[in-house]
């Protein structure tokens, strides 16, 4: 083999894989470093925590050295050396020291990513961090000088004779017949057999010949016996030890060799092994066991392959829908067809869920970047913030996670920069000097809800309103409800910052956040209490690939309304519809009124709203819990649809979230309920006012 690679090193493609693996592993180590230091900062005094951070730094260094990443080796070596003192002295770093370590962790992360991208950090960047680490080590008297290749210790290798050392295996035959007392004392033969199996490979033959006819069977009696052939290097006493506690309650015979009477397994008669191990003959080892041992418990899969699988499953869902479409309408004609189709749908759904499950990842990968971000913002703003993270194990589709980083980063910046007050302001308001920022993730009703909550000053509605009027977002005399004022901050171009700060005042506002959340099929809402803080809630779909929806027709077009937003379907007539304006109607449902929107007119299928005297409507709810009824022409039924993005081919269309392909091959648009309601927002506010008068 080495002839193909004269330099005797690893083939390039294998090496590329290992390099990739190294950088992925580095991310894990970096996360470990950060969480370890944060735990220590929180007062964790477990020496294993120090050990684990040391190991993480050590591993990065070791891997980098193998791959020849010199800069990374140097820095991680300093890091490791600075840590070594605490590991050996079993002391814990002080808060000031931990701050240096956390900063160094950030720099190590930068260095790892730069190395991965094939870039180099400037000496200045590197030296600054190195100096601080070296300073630490100096005070603790550790040597952090770069790795020196000194003499190897005096050592002479211990030769072994290859044939000589292999453990000698020997077959044992064990006859084991439990008595009734064994069972009566709550012993279980399976436990003993499992214990025995730990000693080596074994074949078991169960003797059931003593079992009587059912009528003669005594439930308290023992009828089973086992004949076991065990190949082990252990002694007879080790074998007998397994049966130590049941010896008196069974017939037990242990003897060397293979019993003449033992029935070999029919399919694979086991050859009598020679007493010495035959190392070359791998087939002699139980193949299943070997496979199980060599199989790692996780598997890294190329994302592209996974995406291809997702696409295939999506196509499968469409095909299945097509099949259902063309199924014979008369079930009497072919009764089995319907049943087979049902099985297929169930299977398709199971496959789909499994595949989605593979793509699901804990939000941890996004959340774990936040402590560093908060530290950086703290430094830039001079505010101190206590960050609490909850639900970081919540699983979300990978694509959602990828799209989450930017909006979340922006929201955290905003929360600290604009939300949390300065030290002086907080003191005046009798609040703790340290601000609090809570970021949480949780599954709620088939979606993932991520909340960013600060205990800052809350949204100043008067100020927001004034700005909105100034920027012509609303007219000066518009009557806008309290929460609707809060929601104005999501309008394009809106900014409350009187001064542009380094952090959040870059002209990129909450509208960008909202847009990126919407691109993920998500929604964002805000709730705020003056003086007590602001909470942003992101509601995201678990997956971007499929959706349960209600198929409706409007002006001859097929539309899908997401089931998550749908509350019920209602029939309306002139009895329960009240016209409250030229283009506004209210629908009375069980004593309450909701706006009735002509969906066809809202989406521009017809020039203006013309609600017929009676018809059918879908009662839907947006994230904030506001309800409207959407008048449609017909309801076609519930469908599971595969989401196809429109934005790749068309630009974003107001009121439409995406498209899908139906079983009959036609394209249907998926409705964005929130957007439809938002487009009616000002109208709604007026309606509410009218309702208040009514």
């Amino acid at each position, binding site marked *: 083999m080495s002839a193909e690679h004269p330099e005797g090193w690893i083939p390039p493609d294998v090496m590329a894989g290992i390099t990739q693996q190294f950088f992925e592993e580095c991310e894990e180590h970096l996360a470990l470093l950060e969480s370890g230091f944060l735990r220590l900062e929180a007062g964790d005094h477990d020496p294993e925590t120090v050990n684990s951070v040391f190991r993480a730094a050590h591993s990065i260094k*070791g891997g980098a050295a193998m791959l020849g990443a010199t800069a990374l080796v140097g820095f991680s070596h300093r890091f490791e050396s600075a840590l070594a003192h605490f590991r050996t002295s079993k002391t814990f770093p002080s808060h000031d020291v931990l701050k240096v370590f956390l900063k160094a962790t950030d720099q190590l992360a930068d260095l790892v990513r730069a190395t991965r991208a094939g870039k180099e950090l400037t000496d200045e960047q590197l030296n600054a961090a190195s100096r601080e680490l070296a300073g630490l080590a100096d005070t603790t008297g550790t040597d952090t000088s770069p790795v020196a290749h000194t003499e190897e210790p005096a050592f002479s290798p211990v030769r*072994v004779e*290859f044939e000589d*050392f292999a453990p000698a295996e020997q077959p044992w035959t064990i006859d084991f017949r439990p008595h009734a007392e064994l069972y009566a004392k709550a012993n279980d033969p399976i436990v003993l057999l499992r214990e025995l199996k730990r000693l080596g490979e074994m074949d078991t033959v169960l003797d059931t010949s003593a079992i009587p006819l059912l009528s003669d069977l005594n439930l308290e009696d023992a009828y089973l016996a086992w004949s076991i052939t065990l190949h082990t290097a252990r002694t007879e006493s080790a074998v007998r030890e397994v049966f130590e506690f049941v010896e008196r309650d069974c017939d037990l015979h242990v003897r060397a060799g293979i019993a003449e009477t033992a029935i070999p397994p029919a399919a694979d008669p086991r050859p009598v092994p020679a007493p010495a191990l035959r190392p070359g003959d791998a087939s002699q*080892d139980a193949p299943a066991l070997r496979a199980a041992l060599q199989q790692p418990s996780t598997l890294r899969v190329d994302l592209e392959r996974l995406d291809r699988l997702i696409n295939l499953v999506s196509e499968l869902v469409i095909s299945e829908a097509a099949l259902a479409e063309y199924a014979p309408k008369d079930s009497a004609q072919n009764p089995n067809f319907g049943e087979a189709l049902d099985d297929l749908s169930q299977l398709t759904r199971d496959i789909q869920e499994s595949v989605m499950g593979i793509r699901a990842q804990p939000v941890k990968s996004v959340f774990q970047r936040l402590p560093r971000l908060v530290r950086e913002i703290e430094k830039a703003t001079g505010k101190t913030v206590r960050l609490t993270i909850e639900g970081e194990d919540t699983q979300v589709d990978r694509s959602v996670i990828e799209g989450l980083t930017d909006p979340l980063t922006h929201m955290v910046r905003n929360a600290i920069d604009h939300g949390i007050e300065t030290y002086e302001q907080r003191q005046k308001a009798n609040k703790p000097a340290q601000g609090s920022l809570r970021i949480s993730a949780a599954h709620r009703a088939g979606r993932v809800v991520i909340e960013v909550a600060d205990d800052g000053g809350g949204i100043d509605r008067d100020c927001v309103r004034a700005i909105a009027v100034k920027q012509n977002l609303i007219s000066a005399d518009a009557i806008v409800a309290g929460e609707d004022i809060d929601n104005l901050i999501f309008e394009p171009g809106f900014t409350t910052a009187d001064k542009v700060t380094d952090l959040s005042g870059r002209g990129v506002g909450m509208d960008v956040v909202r847009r990126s959340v919407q691109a993920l099929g998500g929604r964002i809402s805000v709730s705020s209490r003056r003086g007590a803080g602001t909470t942003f809630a992101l509601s995201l779909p678990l997956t971007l690939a499929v959706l349960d929806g209600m198929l409706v027709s409007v002006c001859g077009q097929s539309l899908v309304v997401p089931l998550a937003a749908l509350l019920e379907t209602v029939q309306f007539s002139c009895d329960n519809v009240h016209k409250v304006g030229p283009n506004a109607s209210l629908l009375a449902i069980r004593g309450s009124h909701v706006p009735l929107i002509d969906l066809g007119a809202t989406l521009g299928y017809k020039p203006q709203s013309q609600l017929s005297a009676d018809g059918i409507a879908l009662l839907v709810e947006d994230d904030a819990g506001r309800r409207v009824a959407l008048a449609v022409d017909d309801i076609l039924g519930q469908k599971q649809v595969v989401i196809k993005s429109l934005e790749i081919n068309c630009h974003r269309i107001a009121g439409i979230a995406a498209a899908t392909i139906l079983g009959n091959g036609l394209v249907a648009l998926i409705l964005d309920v929130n957007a439809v309601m938002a487009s009616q927002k000002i109208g709604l506010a007026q309606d509410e006012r009218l309702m208040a008068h009514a």
Partner: protein
Amino acid sequence: MPIAAQIKTVIVDDQSTMRSLLRACLRQIGVSQVTECCDGEEALEVLKRVPTHLVISDLNMPKLDGIGLLRAVRGDPAIAKTAFIMLTSHAERNCVQDAVKFGVNNYLVKPFNFAGLKTKIEAVFGPLT
């Protein structure tokens, strides 16, 4: 069959990169019967079940470290004869003396390469090819 192809090896390291590198290097030498373990505890379980000729183990690992594994191997008559090569870093060289005390067959300093690994294994088993 050359000895290399017959040697059953267990490699023990908590870093998957290092395990992959070792596996790839061993492959170049002709050692293809390799089982990977992430720590000493796991390795000990495997060694008790699967007859093994050679253990290549990292020193610093969670749960049971390299020295702990070496002591456990030498203390169990059924597997005591297994050849043991310890992986160390430069900073850990002083641990080699400990390892000698507990009967290590050879040691290998990281970063190593294919040739270094081969030399160390041949010092234990004699010429591999």
